[in-house]
Structure formats: C-alpha cells, structure tokens
C-alpha cells in the first residue's frame, strides 16, 4: 500500500540528513508505528508521505503510484491527517472542523452533515451535544476524538497520525487507544502512526519501525521485536522488562476462556454456600451478580465477619473498578495496581459480568509467552 524506497531528507542548511536511505513497506490495512527517540526522523518520514516535506532523494509509492508525481493537494485530500496537539481550528465549531476535508472536496451540504454526524458518533461524541461547540469548550480527550474524526470523515484509505494521543492523561489515553483500535478493526485503514512511547507502539501496531538518527533500525511485528531485537539500541528502547510489555499485545478476551473462571454467586444465594465458594477461590473473594448477570459487587473474607444477613446480597460491597474485555492485559494490570487488588472483574458494555482476571493469570501468560 505504501512503499518508501531509499527515501532521504536533508533540510537546507544542515549537513546531517534528517532521514537517510529509508526503505519501508506497509501493507494494506496495517498499522505501522514509527518509533524512536526525538530527532530520529520519524515525524519527518511521515510528513514526506503527504509531502508536507519534499524528499531530497528516493521514491514514495502509494498503491503502486509514484506519490511525488501526484498533485500534492489531491494526495493530501485522500490521506487522513492527525497531528500532535491536534491543531483544531479555534474559530470553527466542531462540526465545521470535522467538515474541513468534505468542504475542500465540495461535497453536497447535507451529505457532509450526515457524514460528520456519523463519524462523531463513531468516535464517541454525541453530535447533538457537541457539533455546535467550539474547541475551547472541549476537554483534551474530546479534542483528540475530534482530531481523529476530522481525519476519518472522508473515509481516506490511508491515515497519518503524529502522536495523536500525546496530550492527554494516561487513563484517557488508554481509553482512546482502545476505542481507536476497535474502530480500526472495523475500518481496516492503512495507518502510519508516530510515537516516542514504545508501550503505545507495541499496543497499537501491526508492525513497528524503529528509527535512530534518520535510519531504520528494525521493522518487525511487535512480537518479533520483543523476542528478537535487532541490536542493543532496540533492546534498550524496548527496555528490560520485555515480558511485561507482552501484556500490551494480548487482549483480555483472548485469554478469558482459558483462565479458570470462578463462578459468580447470585445475589440471593445462601451465605453458607457463598462462604464455601470464597474458601475455595484463590483470590479469597467471590463476585456477586444479580439475576440479569449484572455486576452487583464482591464479597471478601473480611466482609463475612463485618456484615450479617442470610443471602449474598447482604454482604457484598462495591467493586472499585472494572474493565472491558477488549482492553489489554496491561490495562488489567494497571487497574489491579490502582485498586490494590489481585483481581479485576471483566464486564461488557451493559455492565454484565464476563469473568475475572487475576494476577496469577497474568503471571501464567508472561511465563508461557516469555
């Protein structure tokens, strides 16, 4: 889909090339993450693809066509673009911002409106609430969503994203990443994604291209990168705790069936039975659900002594946090550490209980994979 051949860029007045002799091929529907320390040429490489920077040497092929021969405006209109700090237009409403490319392409007005509304819903912004607001009235996370929506509205086959989730707190970032992956699963766009965060790279990518001082050091799947780093630079970048980074690669729903799923107790179960269940459980607790399988809470050993009653519902207390099954194991670990528990309950969007992931499960995964 995208092929870079011997690509080089020397900025005027610089002796050292920002990018030198870069060869990279990105398959259709793949997310390729360019990663490396700042100044390694990853952003420069990305900006050459939509010709914000003209290469000083080499070729760029997009679907086999020579991109350097194409009209740059036409080229850019068909490549979605999300940049660092998002670059929303402060004087336009969210709707107008997202409609930028359709307006440039002179789509009919109602088709644009329709499409903007669709794409806003897709990224989780209610069009009725947000379309007439100005960017200054949005939170960081909401602006990032608008940035992504703006890039996707005309359904371009290729998207370039330069640290699109950089400017938000870690929790919001993880949520945006998960949502984006869910959207990508459906859309199957070819994406070039730039980040300096190796964890984000591992989580988001189909392939990772590690760059240093303008050169491509290694281009591999995240799994290969973790198990066989090409040189010391890559292994340092990946870091020492590689096996923990593997947790980024696995989603909860991939292991949920395999883990020994402790049965939840129903809220009107006799407390005697529940007590036995707690004794047998390796987390010394039992999840309680109502008759619709919705999560009610949890009963631990200490709750049995503190409270009284006949059925499980009388004893249960609220769980601190839950997780959905499309999150990664690393997200699960984060929640466990934050709540100070050795487990986390997995629920679906309707808050229905799907299972429990324990610290022990994570250890097993790390052991098997490593």
């Amino acid at each position: 889909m995208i092929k870079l051949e011997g690509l080089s860029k020397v900025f005027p007045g610089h002796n050292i090339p920002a990018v030198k002799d870069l060869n990279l091929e990105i398959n259709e529907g793949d997310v390729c993450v360019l990663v490396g320390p700042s100044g390694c040429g990853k952003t420069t490489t990305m900006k050459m693809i939509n010709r914000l920077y003209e290469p000083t040497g080499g070729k760029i092929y997009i679907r086999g066509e020579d991109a350097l021969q194409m009209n740059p405006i036409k080229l850019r209109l068909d490549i979605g673009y999300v940049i660092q700090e998002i670059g929303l237009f402060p004087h336009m409403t969210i709707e107008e911002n997202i409609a930028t490319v359709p307006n440039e392409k002179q789509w009919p007005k109602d088709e644009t409106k329709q499409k903007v509304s669709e794409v806003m819903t897709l990224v989780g912004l209610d069009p009725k609430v947000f379309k007439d607001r100005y960017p200054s009235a949005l939170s960081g996370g909401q602006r990032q969503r608008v940035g992504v929506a703006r890039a996707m509205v005309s359904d371009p086959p290729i998207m370039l994203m330069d640290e699109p989730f950089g400017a938000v707190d870690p929790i919001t970032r993880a949520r945006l990443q998960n949502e984006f992956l869910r959207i990508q699963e459906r859309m199957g766009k070819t994406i070039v994604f730039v980040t300096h965060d190796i964890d984000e790279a591992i989580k988001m990518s189909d392939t990772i291209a590690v760059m240093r001082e303008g050169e491509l050091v290694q281009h591999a799947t995240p799994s290969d990168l973790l198990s066989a780093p090409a040189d010391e630079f890559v292994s340092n970048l990946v870091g020492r705790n590689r096996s923990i980074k593997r947790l980024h690669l696995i989603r909860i729903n991939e292991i949920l069936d395999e883990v020994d799923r402790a049965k939840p107790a129903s809220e009107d179960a006799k407390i005697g039975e529940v007590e036995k269940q707690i004794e047998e459980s390796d987390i010394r607790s039992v999840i309680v659900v109502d008759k619709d399988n919705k999560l009610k809470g949890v009963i631990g050993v200490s709750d049995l002594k503190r409270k009284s009653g006949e059925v499980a519902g009388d004893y249960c207390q609220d769980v601190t946090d839950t997780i959905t099954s499309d999150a990664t194991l690393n997200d699960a670990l984060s929640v466990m550490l934050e709540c100070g528990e050795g487990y986390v309950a997995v629920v679906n969007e309707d808050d229905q209980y799907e299972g429990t992931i324990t610290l022990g499960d994570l250890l097993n995964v790390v052991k098997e994979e490593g």
Partner: protein
Amino acid sequence: MAREIWKWLGIPLIMIAIAAVIVIYSVNNPTDSIVARMLTYERVFRVIREHMGLLLVSMTGAIIVGVAGGIMLSRPSLYRIGRVMETFVNIGQTVPSLAVLALFYTILGLGFNVAVFALFLYSILPILRNTFAGIDGVEHNIIEAARGMGMRPLRILTKIELPIAFPIIVAGIRTAIVINVGAATLATFIGGGGLGDLIVTGLSVHRDMIIVNGAVIAAVTAILLDYLIGKVEERVVRWA
C-alpha cells in the same frame, strides 16, 4: 430583539445626547457677540461633515492598504521584509501627527486632499502592523493541520489565517480610528477643515466655549466609533 438593540444603542445615544446638549446650549446662550458669530449650527454641522470626510476617506484607504499590505508581508516570500517593517512602524509611530502634517504641507501644499493623505499614511501603520502580527501569530500546528489535510494556500489564508487574526486586525483598526479622529483636528492648520476649525478659532479669540464644542464632539466621535466597532467584533467573533 428590542432589548438587544437598546443594549447596543444605549451608550452611543447617551454620548450623542451629551454632545448635542452642549452644542445646543452654547449656540443658544452665547457668552458674547463673538461667540454668537463664531458658533452657529451651520458652522458646527459643516466642521462635523468635514471631519467625517477626512476620517472616512483616510480610514477607508488605510484599511484597504494596511490589511492588504499586512497580508502580503505575512506570505513566506515577503516574511523577512515584514519583520523589518514591524520595527519601522514602531519608529514611525513615535513621529508626532503634527509633524507628519507639517511635512506633507511642505511637500504637497495646503488643502483637504493633503490632510487626507497625511492622515491616511499615519493610520496605515497600526493596521499594517496588527494585520501582519495577527497572521504571524496563528499557531504553527493549526496551519500545518490545514496544509496536511489538503487545503490550498489561498483557502488557508481566507478560511483559517484571516478569521483567527481578525480580532487583532480589528484592534489595529480601532487604534487607527482613535488616533485619526484626534489627528484630524490638526488638519485645520493646513487648510483641511474639520473640528480643529472650532478649536483653533476658539484659541485665537480666547473663547473657551468654542474650544469645548470642538473638543467634545471630537472626543464623542472617537469613543462612539471605537465602541461600535468593538460591538461588531463581539458579534462576529463567537469563538474566543
């Protein structure tokens, strides 16, 4: 709707009323025969008309040239000249308006047109500088986002740069108008007419009443125009 209009027109109407009261009182109760002869409705209306003429012609020219020049200087090819221009404008503005008028008097002679030309040149400066600074101040990543999405340079200018720079450009125009109303009172020295006529006449015959009339009308004009442009700007810029 009616309330909205009153909110807009309240202050201007009060200002106009104050000026009108002073003029009507002075014309009907002159302190002596000299004031009675020098201060008539006919004369007041004439100098107001002349003053507005000076203002309108010189400001229209200054806005067109200042904004167009500022846009041109902000383009990449002329950007370096633009930066130099900023410094020169700052120096230019330290020259007193009286000196500017005197200078053009020596070069071009007397009359309304010379006064208009001098006021025009003097008013360009803040507009030119603010237009340039306003466009220059648009965040780099906003322009880059626009370029990256495939907007053409002219579209970026009209849809992104100018609207974002608009409040700053308007601030330049407001500054220019206030300066212009004041400086135009000096046009009378080179035969340009205007409210300065009343002030200079009053000074030469030692009658404060005539001076006050000229000064008050000039002040009210300046405040009024500044206020109205500010209101229009508030209406247009909803995003800040």
